[in-house]
């Protein structure tokens, strides 16, 4: 799951702490989501996108991992 939280934060001039307080989570959770260490629940994803007044697809994108298999 890829996200643009960092970009939206920069656009709104917000720190991780500001966003965390606004949506009721810890700063570490925002950091973990930004770095892709943690995939947020739908509820949290909607909260984040609504906080930036955008659709959820604009903040989060489902990036499926592709695998290549070599067949000789």
């Amino acid at each position, binding site marked *: 799951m890829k996200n643009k939280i960092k970009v939206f934060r920069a656009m709104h001039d917000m*720190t991780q702490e500001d966003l965390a307080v606004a949506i*009721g*989570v810890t700063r570490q*959770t925002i950091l*973990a989501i930004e*770095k892709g*260490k943690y995939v947020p629940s739908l509820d949290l994803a909607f909260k984040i996108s609504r906080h930036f007044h955008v659709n959820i697809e604009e903040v989060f994108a489902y990036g499926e991992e592709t695998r290549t298999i070599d067949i000789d």
Partner: protein
Amino acid sequence: MKKNTFYILIGCIALALLALFIYSIETRLIPLWIEPVAFVIGILIVYTARKSVTDLIEDERSAKITENAVVRTFQVFWVVFCAFSIGAVMDLLYLPQFSRERFLGRPPGILTIRMMGYFQLGLLCLMIFLYVGFRMYYARKYGDWETDEE
């Protein structure tokens, strides 16, 4: 109440319970029921105090870390616990012979029922360390110790 004050309170309660335990064992002046009751009261105080902590945020990520750590702890623990218990019962009963005479007339051996109980108690205590280990693993996995430029 601040988070650090809460942790200090937990430490004080743990020390008080330990002191009561040692005192009751050494002097035998305290009735046996006091220690378990004190333990329950201590836990109730901790749970009550936890509600008044203002700077301790529990969000879905920390809930997931706890959940995963608990599940993994039980997955490992019940296998070890049952394997040990089955092995101990096998040893006590001299299986596979199923010889009742040998069981009843058995001289004090390596493993007695009391020893088995102590080992099981020890395994229960080890579960705490297992949980802490898994919790640290999942905390790291879900970015608890990540650092950023901010």
